[in-house]
């Protein structure tokens, strides 16, 4: 298990993405599997920065672990939280339609990972748990 802490600056999004890709190398992934995980991490971290902390600065945690070939990534912020998680996860739902947000972040995470679980509390923060079996096939 590795644990990363970083500030909600957009340059750190790339760092989180590469760390996840590096961790999963032990499963001998294909380029496509790696791209899937990177996209999911990228979306989740971007959400923490853009929505969780908005114009504020705050900490983002990322935990990466595995059980056998199942990769597990937990991404967490301590920002505003999501009042209605079910609604937020609907395709094309976005609370920032003006800023080139597509509302497809959660949909991508769902599409590219095997499993995603989102828990959030208003004013406390948001935690996204994602899993994917990585087989190199």
């Amino acid at each position, binding site marked *: 298990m590795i644990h990363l802490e970083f500030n909600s600056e957009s340059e750190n999004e*790339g760092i989180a993405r*590469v760390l996840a890709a590096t961790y999963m190398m032990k499963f001998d992934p294909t*380029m496509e599997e790696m*791209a899937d995980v*990177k*996209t999911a991490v990228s979306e989740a971290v971007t959400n923490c920065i853009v929505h969780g902390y908005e114009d504020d600065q705050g900490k983002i945690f990322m935990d990466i672990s595995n059980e056998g070939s199942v990769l597990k990534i937990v991404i967490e912020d301590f920002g505003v939280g999501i009042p209605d998680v079910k609604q937020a996860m609907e395709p094309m739902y976005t609370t920032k339609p003006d800023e080139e947000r597509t509302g497809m972040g959660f949909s991508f995470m769902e599409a590219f990972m095997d499993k995603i679980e989102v828990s959030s509390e208003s004013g406390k923060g948001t935690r996204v748990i994602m899993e994917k079996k990585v087989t190199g096939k």
Partner: protein
Amino acid sequence: IGEVRRYLRDNNSMRVSRSLRDIAYKAITAKEALTKKFNKEPTIEAIAEEIEMKKEDVLFALDAIATPLSLYEPVYQ
């Protein structure tokens, strides 16, 4: 210790960013060739072996050339 340093590696003042572009190009070419040859997608490790690079450098190179816009496209276009 300056000796040690020279002994350990050739003085290489090329920018990493430039070298990564070369590696990424080779990796993508190798990926296509291996896919044709075996009729399935190669792993990063197989690609790295083919172009005689470390897999960590291949990973790094592929990430460096992926712009945010190409995120939802194949990594290379």
